[in-house]
């Protein structure tokens, strides 16, 4: 039995008809055409589907849409503002923390969540904080470089208003 669910995604209201077993990943990818959120394993093993819910990193492949009413959902599509990248996006792009790109939206949303929780993580905290996002291309070095550059303020000028945090 499908039901209407009111979701707040990237700051906009969406009323979607969903079955109770639909995950947020299903809804954004298949119903709303926001295919930036990726699926790599569909059971919480790879982190490619990471999104922010109320500012924290969540796995959208194992989060029910019906359970997400009233929450602030941010997907990768919600970071860029008026053609301006979020510092993490900018850093991942410039430091070549992106290769094939399939894990990238999840990596960026995860990094976003990490910095929301801990704006100044040290290297070890970045390593641990990003361990839920598998990347097969980069060996992670350039991803660490990018996040560290953001932490060190290298991309402050590119900063857009923080999305997804408080």
């Amino acid at each position: 039995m499908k039901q209407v669910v009111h979701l707040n995604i990237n700051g906009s209201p969406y009323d979607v008809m969903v079955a109770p077993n639909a995950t947020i990943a299903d809804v954004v990818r298949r119903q709303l055409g926001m295919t930036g959120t990726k699926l790599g394993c569909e059971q919480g093993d790879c982190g490619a589907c990471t999104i922010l819910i109320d500012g924290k990193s969540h796995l959208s492949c194992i989060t029910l849409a019906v359970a997400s009413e009233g929450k602030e959902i941010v997907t990768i599509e919600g970071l860029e503002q008026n053609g301006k990248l979020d510092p993490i996006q900018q850093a991942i792009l410039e430091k070549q923390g992106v290769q094939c790109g399939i894990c990238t939206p999840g990596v960026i949303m995860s990094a976003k969540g990490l910095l929301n929780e801990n704006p100044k993580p040290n290297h070890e905290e970045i390593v641990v904080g990003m361990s839920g996002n598998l990347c097969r291309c980069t060996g992670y070095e350039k991803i660490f470089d990018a996040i560290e550059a953001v932490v060190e303020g290298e991309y402050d000028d590119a900063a857009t208003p923080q999305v997804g945090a408080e």
Partner: protein
Amino acid sequence: MYLPSFQYLAPKDTGELAALLSDHGDNARILSGGTDLLVQLKNSGADLGYVIDISGLEKLSEISYDDTNGLVIGAAAKLDDIMALPVVKEKYFALYQAIETIGARQIRTMGSLGGNICNASPAADTPPALVAFNAEVSIASDAAERQMPLVDFIQGNRKTDLGKGEYLKSITLPVPAKNSGSAYHHFRVRGGMEIAMVAAALSIQLEADNGTVKDAVIALGVVGPAPIKAEDAAKILIGQKPNEELLQSVSQACADISQPIDDFRASAEYRKEILRVLIEEAFDEAYAQVAG
């Protein structure tokens, strides 16, 4: 991959939860964080009547501590919220270590302590740590509420003592005694996003003056269908001043009662060897917390 079909119910309070469970208990699963349940459902493919979501129930998400009642954690409290509480790191270090080990940040954000317990996976991280603190669980239904030790609550692989219409309400960890320390050590093959292959938790209390062990609780994880409380092994420690030989006999006693599986990940024999290492290392760490 799809979830099987079900009806979604989100009770507004525990009363409603109890009523729903009483009506649909046989054909319902409780959803808290979803990190275990939804993965299981995706893999099972079997349709289900109801999924009852308790994640919105504030009462079940509360965490409190006082010097009389100890640490009381609502079943739906999120793992990262528990970990963030200073008292957990200060007084229940083994639990802190166990939570820190679970999955990755996303999993700890989503997952709840009650879920980690009720899922009753033999590889779950928190149950051995909770056993080491003599944790008790509160189980509620629309008719009654009862308490029991956590070690008795988890009965086996994916089996708990939850009866029809019942739900796990909270977990209580008594106030640790003075001069006590604790540690949770686990062994895993991959650095991140990994479950434990073997785990050991213990809490110890030392005599204030001479460093002998006054009390000890040892819990073994992943080496049986449910956490094992190694009481005989713990007794070896009581009244003793620890030394290498003593610890070896303790860890041997633990290995002797363990029943690890033998599968493609590792042999049972090897798991027992690892268990011994973990017991000894966990003891050293806990001891150092008290003795400095």
